[in-house]
């Protein structure tokens, strides 16, 4: 009896010591991913924890990006942010100003850095202590592409002129009742759509030191005028275009590749569809790359937690993880080596709609970094809407927008 008790005690002690010996580091990760995206992230976290038994990744869904941003800002003010989180570039600027973030460049090997597409390096590089350094790592990335109805279009347009011509040809009143039943193109007046055409016309939003807004330049006028031309053959609505595209009311539209699953389910049983590289504009055919990055907080976290978070962030951009992530979610792989791997090519062969977004990633551009970018893009969006609704001429609207941006958001920044 005594022997049994002793054994029990020893076993208990052994377990106790073992438990004490490997104290787990808990890393909370705030994100905005839902459903299939959340499942993929959960899977990757559990995979990571298998190989890192001393790390516990705690994923916390914090609502949409808007909610997540509000919550992160409040948490940073309270000195209690999570260890890591998804973040857009303008939030990153704010968190850097608060001295709350850990720049990740020193932790990333040279060969990994050179394997990340240039546009993504640009979007994750910030000025810290007057030096440019990689602060965050790319996470859920999507590119602007052209969605088109394959029942109506054999060869998608490759230039702006072809796009306009095709949009015109595909705008028809089928039953002759004087109302258009099928539009060649679709326009949802959100700022990024205008910025896309603006960039392809050769525009840049700010001057070098971000003291002037150049949205009312020649490129701005060119882009607005072209969009006005397109609007004649477009369904213009503020809702997402995947619905009308799926039902066949809209033959083409330019949108984020994140919309692929919505287009797929809305088009099912109605018509075939595919994505294509964006029609090339007067200056270039580059595509806007959107989506968040991952940052690690130093504020209110321990060094062990930061190190563990860095490990997980590095794992998420590893070739295996980013390929899995891309296949499961529809976002883009963030490694050049994955894009050119045979596995990816095989996947593309089965999923042709994923080809164009991947190509666009290598020809991508991103928003400039400014803490007020969220408000600035809204001003641009308003100008875009005013022109589309005929309330202002392109010159008027863009002059007004540039003035508001300069006086309200650029000067105030200091």
């Amino acid at each position, binding site marked *: 009896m005594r022997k049994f008790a002793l054994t029990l005690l020893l076993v208990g002690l052994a377990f106790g010591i073992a438990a004490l010996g490997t104290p787990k580091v808990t890393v909370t990760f705030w994100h905005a991913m839902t459903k299939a995206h959340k499942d993929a992230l959960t899977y990757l976290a559990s995979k990571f924890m298998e190989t890192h038994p001393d790390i516990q990744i705690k994923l916390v869904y914090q*609502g949409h990006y808007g909610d997540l941003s509000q919550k992160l800002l*409040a948490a940073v003010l*309270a*000195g209690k942010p999570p260890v890591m989180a998804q973040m857009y570039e303008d939030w990153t600027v704010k968190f850097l100003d608060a001295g709350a973030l850990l720049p990740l460049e020193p932790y990333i090997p040279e060969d990994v850095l050179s394997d990340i597409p240039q546009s993504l390096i640009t979007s994750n590089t910030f000025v810290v202590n007057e030096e440019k350094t990689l602060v965050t790592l790319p996470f859920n990335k999507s590119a602007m592409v052209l969605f088109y109805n394959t029942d109506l279009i054999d060869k998608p347009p490759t230039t702006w002129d072809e796009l306009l011509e095709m949009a015109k040809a595909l705008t028809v009143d089928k039953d002759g009742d004087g109302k258009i039943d099928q539009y060649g193109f679709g326009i949802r007046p959100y700022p990024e759509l205008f910025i896309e055409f603006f960039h392809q016309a050769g525009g840049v939003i700010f001057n070098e030191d971000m003291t002037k807004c150049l949205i009312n330049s020649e490129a701005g006028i060119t882009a607005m005028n072209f969009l006005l031309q397109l609007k004649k053959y477009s369904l213009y609505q503020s809702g997402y275009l*995947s619905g009308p595209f799926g039902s066949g009311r809209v033959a083409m539209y330019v*949108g984020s590749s*994140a919309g692929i699953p919505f287009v797929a389910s*809305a088009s099912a049983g109605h018509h075939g569809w595919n994505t294509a590289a964006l029609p090339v504009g007067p200056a270039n055919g580059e595509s806007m790359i959107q989506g968040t990055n991952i940052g690690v907080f130093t504020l209110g976290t321990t060094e062990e937690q930061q190190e563990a978070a860095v490990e997980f962030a590095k794992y998420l951009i590893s070739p295996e993880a980013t390929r899995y992530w891309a296949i499961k979610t529809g976002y883009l792989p963030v490694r050049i080596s994955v894009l050119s791997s045979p596995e990816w090519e095989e996947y593309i062969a089965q999923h042709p709609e994923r080809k164009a977004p991947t190509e666009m990633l290598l020809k991508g551009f991103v928003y400039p970094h400014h803490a007020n970018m969220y408000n600035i893009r809204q001003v641009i969006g308003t100008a875009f809407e005013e022109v589309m609704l005929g309330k202002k001429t392109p010159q008027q609207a863009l002059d007004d927008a540039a003035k508001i941006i300069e006086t309200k958001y650029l000067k105030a920044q200091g």
Partner: protein
Amino acid sequence: MKKEGKVYILQRRAYLLGIYVLLILGTIVMIFPFFWMISTAFKPANEIQLMPPKWLPSRFYWQNFADAWNAAPFGRYFFNSFFVATVTTIGEVFFTILAAYAFAKMDFLGKNVLFIAFLGTMMIPGEMLLVPNYLTIARTLHWLDTYYALIVPWLVSVFGIFLLRQFFLTIPDELWDAARIDGCGRFRYLWTVMVPLSRPGIATVALFKFIGSWNAFLWVLIMTNSDRMRTVPVGLAIFRAEAGTEYGPLMAASTMAMLPILLLFFFTQKQFIQGITRSGLKS
């Protein structure tokens, strides 16, 4: 004379017909969003946004409900919503009655200043208070991710106090004099005379609170971190994604989320009518 009677009846009928037509039109306008929600809840994704619209699904697509239910731990969310809404409603009704009585029927130093200060807080938009409130909850009280954070700050509402105070003011002071002669104290008078007479007002306060609490989104999202503590509206948000909205499952989940409110409304509607008839008989 007889002819006049006939004309009167005809006029009366035309009048009633007009009233009914108006009411029916109003009903259609009110019911339509509900109809559309339920119809969409049963449609597969490729039937939702058609032009011309499809009024009814081609077949009942129950999968939306299964998808919606499985998309988040809705069982827990429903429990939390119920619990939080019930406790805050009971709490608010209790505190509101006390405060409203004090403001309506008692005299004390600085009463008007205090009341105006109370009303002043209604002018501050809630969004502006979110960050300071977060700091209080997170740093001072350490209540993040607890029921305290979801319940305690919502136990008192100035709007409720204001509404009920106005209601209490309409009750004649003679009742209080009579009660006092019979040896009744303020507390007993409040609960046995004022409260029963103010049922419609109290029901309104309770209904507003319950609906408000049931629908609360931002506060719950900001103050909680785990599925354990979240409520139904946070669950509904997951169907809206970066590049589109899954209307089918969203409408299915909304239908499920709306049922308790609808039941509550049917229930309190009876209370409303009772309360109104009661006060109507009095005057």
